[in-house]
């Protein structure tokens, strides 16, 4: 671990972390561009890079984007990311009181505290979980896949049916290509480019980046910020003491929501805001420019940027859109996250931890230094920004396998992403289906081949038994929550106005 920390200075690891954070802050500061989109835009560029530098770059982008989202939230009352929506409430109120610099400073400092806390949790939890996963057999891997897919029930949003539909569509996409057991080609339409399947990166870039570009093409331009009077001011020691409690609350919320599949930065930020208000001795200041109202959600969403890596590194399961994009970065570089990665490539995992440490430090440095160029970028005319994003996406996708067919495929997934937004189909279930589909099918059939077709093999394997029981619990819990929400909705709509 010490060697990994030293490598920040002796290898390009630190540069990668700084570059990722810079890109993340700029992407996060653009309204409508979420961390997952910012990462998806960067994904094709990492193809030719050293795997460790590429993953650190992507993970650092996530860290930077979580802070970047708070910049327009505070300055123009428009959250750059969903997770920054809770920051709008008190951040913009502080800006209206002439304390924009102080609000940005609190956001940056709290994000750093949350990020470092999340990193410690990540280091402590990943190895024990992965050690357990070393004993995995094909039935266990199948069960891990099912556990990952069970998350669909909790990330389906308003409609469980639509979430399940999106998940099945993702599973269908994962069946394109060569069959994992017989080697027969399926759904390839005679195209040699489809023989090796549809790489998850193309689905991600299409759904997130091109889909958002298409949506933005029909939206009006976003508000401009005042780039001349904004300078970050870090909190005073007295303010540090005042912010300690909401930051601790945010960090705990971020840890829980980051590890639990389907949680993520947005939920944790709002939970942290509510809990910080509940435990505050100055409740009346919340909503009117309370520094604590910025500290809690910002600590929470930056904690998530690190703790979301726990299920990826230990089990290979993504828990949110951003972590799914990160996972496809792993897959693109031939790295299969999970116990074997930790066992065979410990220096890689240590390097990633060190890179995340550097990213959190970089966030503080760059958050202060690049505020002016960041605001300059955000204030560029929207047509130019969109044109450059489009150009970078099509060029980047071509670069992956020098295939113009892939560019066409990405445009097709962009249309799918636009249609999914229109029909309110959630993305994450589809992403889970695409990523986990092959793992589920190949291990399911391999397990049955080894047990002569006996399905009891999934119950006889102790790890598979526990994981499948957990999956059943996740599904049951989500169903109960859906039923409760439906009942509440029905009773509130039936109540007289």
């Amino acid at each position, binding site marked *: 671990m010490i060697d990994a920390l030293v490598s920040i200075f002796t290898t390009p690891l630190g540069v990668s972390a700084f570059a990722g954070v810079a890109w993340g802050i700029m992407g996060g500061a653009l309204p409508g561009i979420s961390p997952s989109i910012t990462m998806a835009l960067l994904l094709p*560029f990492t193809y*030719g890079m050293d795997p460790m530098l590429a993953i650190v770059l992507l993970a650092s982008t996530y860290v930077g984007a979580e802070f970047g989202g708070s910049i327009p939230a505070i300055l123009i009352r428009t959250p750059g990311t969903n997770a920054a929506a809770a920051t709008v409430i008190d951040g913009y109120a502080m800006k209206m009181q002439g304390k924009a610099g102080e609000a940005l400073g609190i956001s940056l400092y709290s994000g750093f505290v949350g990020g470092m806390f999340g990193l410690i949790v990540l280091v402590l939890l990943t190895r024990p979980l992965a050690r357990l996963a070393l004993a995995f057999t094909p039935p266990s891997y199948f069960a891990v896949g099912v556990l990952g897919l069970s998350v669909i029930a909790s990330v389906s949003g308003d409609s469980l*049916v*639509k979430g*399940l*539909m999106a998940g*099945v*569509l993702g*599973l*269908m996409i994962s*069946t394109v290509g060569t*069959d994992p*057991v*017989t*080697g*027969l080609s*399926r*759904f390839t339409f005679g195209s040699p480019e489809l023989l090796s399947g549809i790489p998850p990166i193309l689905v991600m870039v299409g759904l997130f980046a*091109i889909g958002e*570009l*298409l*949506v933005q*093409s*029909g*939206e009006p*331009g976003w508000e401009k910020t005042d780039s001349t009077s904004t300078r970050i001011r870090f909190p005073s020691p007295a303010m540090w003491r005042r912010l300690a409690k909401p930051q601790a609350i945010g960090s705990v919320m971020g840890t829980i929501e980051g590890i639990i599949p389907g949680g993520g930065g947005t939920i944790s930020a709002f939970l942290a805001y509510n809990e910080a208000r509940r435990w505050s001795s100055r409740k009346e200041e919340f909503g009117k420019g309370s520094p604590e109202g910025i500290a809690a959600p910002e600590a929470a969403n930056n904690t998530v940027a690190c703790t979301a890596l726990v299920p990826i590194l230990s089990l290979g399961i993504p828990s949110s859109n951003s972590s799914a994009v990160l996972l496809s970065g792993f897959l693109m570089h031939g790295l299969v996250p999970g116990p074997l990665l930790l066992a065979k490539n410990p220096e890689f995992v240590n390097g990633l931890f060190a890179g995340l440490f550097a990213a959190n430090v970089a966030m503080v440095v760059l958050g202060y230094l690049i505020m002016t160029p960041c605001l300059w970028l955000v204030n560029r*005319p*929207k*047509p*130019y920004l*969109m*044109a*450059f994003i*489009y*150009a*970078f996406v*099509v*060029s*980047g996708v*071509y*670069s992956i396998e*020098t295939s*113009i067919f892939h*560019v*066409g495929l990405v*445009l097709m997934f*962009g*249309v799918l992403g*636009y249609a999914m937004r*229109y*029909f309110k*189909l959630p993305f994450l279930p589809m992403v889970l289906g695409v990523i986990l589909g092959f793992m589920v*099918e190949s291990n*399911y*059939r391999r397990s*049955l*081949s080894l047990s002569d*077709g006996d399905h009891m093999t999934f119950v006889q394997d102790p790890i598979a038994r526990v994981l499948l029981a957990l999956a059943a619990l996740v599904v049951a819990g989500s169903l109960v929550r859906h039923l409760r929400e439906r009942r509440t909705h029905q009773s509130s709509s039936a109540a007289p106005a």
Partner: protein
Amino acid sequence: MPRDLALGLSTLALSIGYYAMTLGIPDSQLADAIGPQGLPRAYAFVLAALSAILIGRSLRSNVRLHSDPAIWRVVGMLGIGVVYVFAVEWLGYFLSIAGLIVATTYYQGGVVSRHVLIVALVGAVICWLLFVRVMGVPQPPGWWPALL
């Protein structure tokens, strides 16, 4: 038509089409008990069942399919990408990417002015330097460099 009904009918048609395609997957002597068609057929059945549920629910829904006024902007934006895909092999990367920047800027409400053309040229140079020179990606050169 209710929006969810349109979605349900589309996914139902998709599940039927997908199922029909599984019938074209040949049998293999290497196949296991499930076979290469097994899970895809199961997915088709599940999607059909979910579509039927959505169709049933949608009949009671008030949310109607509406024509999005922005849809033509979206189609146009997509069209620029499609034209790029077909043009890049012929025109080459540099000219195509410059054209894409000009077209997108114009389409998004800009005007074709000298400023836009300069920005597009600068953008194309940046992209060419980044992808071709720095990353070493052999982007399509097009037919015209051979004439130079």
